[in-house]
């Protein structure tokens, strides 16, 4: 079972708005591969993750915005190895994350 899809389907069946953020590309070194996902509900619940932990706050904000506007967005977090710790990617590299409201 996939806890992210499970949860988001549950929210939608309760007619709660929700967004899905999915890693679609990882360049160079990244801890989690394409397909890794995180879901956010309109009341701020979160399930899953998209990185080692630190781009999640930014992705959360984007997910809430997507719930609001309905506009999907392709996000890129590019981090040099030196800056990796600063922004929070544990391994450096660049990740591309697609954020969308789940209205399908």
């Amino acid at each position, binding site marked *: *079972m*996939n*806890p*992210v*899809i*499970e949860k*988001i*389907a549950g929210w*939608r*069946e309760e007619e709660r708005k929700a967004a899905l953020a*999915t890693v*679609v*590309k*990882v*360049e*160079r*070194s*990244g*801890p*989690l*591969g*394409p*397909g*890794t*996902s*995180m879901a956010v509900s309109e009341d701020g619940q979160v*399930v*899953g*993750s998209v990185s080692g932990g630190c781009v999640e706050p930014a992705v959360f904000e984007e997910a809430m915005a997507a719930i609001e506007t309905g*506009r*999907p967005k*392709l996000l890129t977090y590019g981090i040099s190895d030196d800056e990796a710790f600063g922004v929070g990617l544990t*391994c450096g*590299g660049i990740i591309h994350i*697609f954020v*969308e409201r*789940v209205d*399908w």
Partner: protein
Amino acid sequence: MSIISRWRELLAEQSPVAVATVIEGPEASFGGKLLVTPDDHEGSAGNEDLDRAVVEAARGLLEGGKTETRHFGPRGQRRMEDVAVFVQSFAPPPKMYVFGAIDFASAVARVGKFLGYRVIVCDARAVFATRERFPSADEVVVAWPDEFLKTAEVDRRSVICVLTHDPKFDVPVLKEALNTEAGYIGAMGSRRTHDNRTARLKEEGVTDEALGRISSPIGLDIGSRTPEETAVAIAAEIIAFRTGHAGGRLAERSGPIHEAAPDVAPSPDARDAGRNTAGAARDPR
């Protein structure tokens, strides 16, 4: 039923499903969603021509359990880059076949389960091949290993561990294993057992090239002794084989730990972690 509900349902019943999303492209297609199964599809990427192309590509990727981004023209044309479609495949868990119901097999079955495999233990001896001895296995089968393997479902994601180290069992089952497209074939035994087995397989007409597919003696060289330690060595070899890594200590290497190699299959338990599931194993030949 909505696409998200259908998606959950297919995952719950472990049916293969691919989900395609237009992540770059013209307004009419951007954000488009298609759920694709081997038999049908739902949703749209914006127009029928593009849908047709995406469905076809998604079925191909689903077959190999692959997750990746494909590019098309606005109406599904090949060799155009305007539209980027991310296709995520969810295939059922890969299978691990364990032959020889010995103590080591119990530990290997446990580690196989831990890695996310569907574990099938098989032995011809009914006293050994029991549910009680293999509580973590998905199936315990009493049958001659080679006979069983003839009809078993084996694909490129499957792994086969032959732990019998008895030529009576392991030579026939290894010959049968070489007729499959299993991504990993390992055989347990001492150096002497290995040499003896290799000689017998050669006598049976197995080529050197085919023998090269068998990891024998099985496992990475980490000094394992107990069944549990040996199971870890076997598990590590299975992972290294799939990813094309040599094994060894990261502390003694430099360079990235996770390579962004496009053709490396995700781990079998990836689905549980909310990631994509296992993909096609590296071509073993």
